[in-house]
């Protein structure tokens, strides 16, 4: 493969045929990639350098959108703080919770598939439906949680109506919907060879040592995978905060995508929204790279790599 890429003239007729066929088969993707990824990416750079409200033609501003966001914009740093807070807690907590639950499910228990189902279903229920029930559950006056607290004479919790509680409440909802990560971890745990645990037992390792020295290293690639996918998703969380708190109270859940959406589709500031999108893109790329680089130190890829 590597050899043939050097000079096209060296292709045999069969290779030519395969190249044509291969390109023919993947051509829908190539076309889609150009239309729905490459072009929008380039256009996004351009729009981010303009003021554009869809009604009048874009006005070129240079990097003003970016400098305004970083210096004088009254909301940007608050939005950034909210997002980092949300991502920083929900992803590590979610991954750790999913990992522990998967380990629990992987041990010898009865009715494993029942427990797995109950934990997984919240992940696939429509976000709108979950938002409705969580909003109802967490309501201050008539929510079930506060209803129970109240009937025991305990102080109520203003889950969604108090700025100090709103972010943790949304993190709770995010962890509740972590079932996919649990299933992925469970599959990885079931792939860990029995023989390794047996060998560890022979060496006198207890349950905790086996967890630390066998389970974690052998599932670390999947931990990395779930962490990265978790970060990418959490940075772009929109539906739950939009429906549960709409960015409030007092902008405490105005997360990145909520703010971006508001700017683009409520205020029609397409230029500013594009600049925000690019900043987010760079943050996510930087985050992913940092995790990947650090992963060399903690991810174990077995003997075959």
């Amino acid at each position, binding site marked *: 493969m590597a050899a043939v890429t050097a000079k096209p003239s060296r292709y045999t007729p069969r290779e030519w045929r395969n190249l044509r066929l291969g390109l023919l088969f993947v051509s829908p*993707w190539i076309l889609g990639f150009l239309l729905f990824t490459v072009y929008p990416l380039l256009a996004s750079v351009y729009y981010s350098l303009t003021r554009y409200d869809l009604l009048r033609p874009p006005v070129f501003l240079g990097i003003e959108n970016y400098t305004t966001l970083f210096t004088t914009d009254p909301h940007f740093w608050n939005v950034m703080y909210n997002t980092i807070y949300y991502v920083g807690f929900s992803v590590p907590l979610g991954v750790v919770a999913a990992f522990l639950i998967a380990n629990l499910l992987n041990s010898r228990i009865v009715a494993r598939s029942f427990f797995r189902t109950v934990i997984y279903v919240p992940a696939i229920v*429509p976000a709108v439906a979950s938002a409705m029930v969580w909003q109802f559950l967490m309501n201050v006056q008539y929510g079930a949680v506060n209803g129970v607290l109240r009937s025991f004479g305990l102080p109520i919790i203003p889950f969604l109506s108090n700025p100090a509680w709103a972010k943790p409440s949304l993190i709770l909802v995010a962890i509740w919907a972590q079932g996919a990560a649990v299933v992925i971890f469970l599959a990885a745990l079931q792939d860990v060879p029995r023989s390794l645990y047996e060998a560890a037992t022979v060496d006198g390792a207890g349950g905790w040592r086996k967890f630390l020295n066998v389970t974690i290293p052998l599932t670390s690639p999947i931990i990395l995978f779930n962490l990265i996918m978790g970060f990418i998703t959490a940075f772009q969380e929109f539906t739950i905060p939009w429906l549960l708190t709409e960015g409030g109270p007092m902008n405490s859940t105005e997360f990145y995508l909520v703010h971006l959406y508001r700017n*683009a589709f409520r205020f029609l500031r397409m230029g500013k929204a594009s600049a925000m999108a690019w900043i987010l893109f760079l943050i996510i790329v930087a985050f992913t790279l940092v995790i990947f680089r650090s992963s060399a130190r903690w991810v174990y890829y077995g003997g075959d790599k």
Partner: protein
Amino acid sequence: MIRAASPTRPPSPFQVRLQGAAVTLVKYAILIPLTISFAFPLYWMVSSALKIDPQVYTIPPILLPMPVHPRNFIEGWQVLPFTRYAFNSIVLYTVPAVLFTVLSSTIVAYGFSRIRWPGRDTLFWFVVMTMMLPWAVTMVPLFITFKWLGWLDTYRPLVVPALFGHPYIIFLLRQFFMTLPEELSDAARIDGTSEFGILFRIILPLTKPALAVVALFRFIWAWNDYLGPLIYLRDETRYPLALGIEQLRQRANDIGNFSNGIPYLMAVSTIVALPIIATFFLAQRTFIEGISLTGLKG
């Protein structure tokens, strides 16, 4: 602990069993409350759907509504044109999105796995990279483009891109196709079967479970999609169910509009969540296998 106390003597069978029983007890002591808390919100959704207003606002909360009011499911559905929304969700969005995505992604995945051509694996890296691309970056320019095409208030912005394959589904199908032996295709090629013939007559019949997995995923994404319709659809008669629910909430929140607002909202949410939950139960194995595959070689 036991070992440390008596290093020479192995623990007696009784001690081992006692320890085992303690571990089991702790396990279930964590697992059962955990499962209950995971299940509770959805249980609450269904049970509240069966209540009427006085039962909703009672303190302490009523765990088992007595008597039940199943009429909420019908009455709630009729507050807004939900049958219309269901039609939109199914016919205008989910069905075409699933068909288009599966068909196009199958063809593309075949090109990325069953034919050897120079540059294939390099190009596949771009597919993997687009899986990780934040969709927020392309959201605004795509909106501008679709608006320019006059596609606002139609399902085209949500459905037409599905004709060009979905990176995640291409990725999954490619992984499946790679597991099939090369000889299968070679034998057919010698017989003079075209590549399309091989794909549709030999490969696809062997990968039905894989197709089921990706079709299920795509169905869930389309059915649950909220942001897409929120951006592109303004005309209420075109709403899918996801936007319909939010519309119902707004109506229910306008106090005095009608009673049983929360039960209606919960009833409609239950109906909308039901196809997803039912599909999961019917195809549990397929599902779990598909998700498990996601993590492998990610």
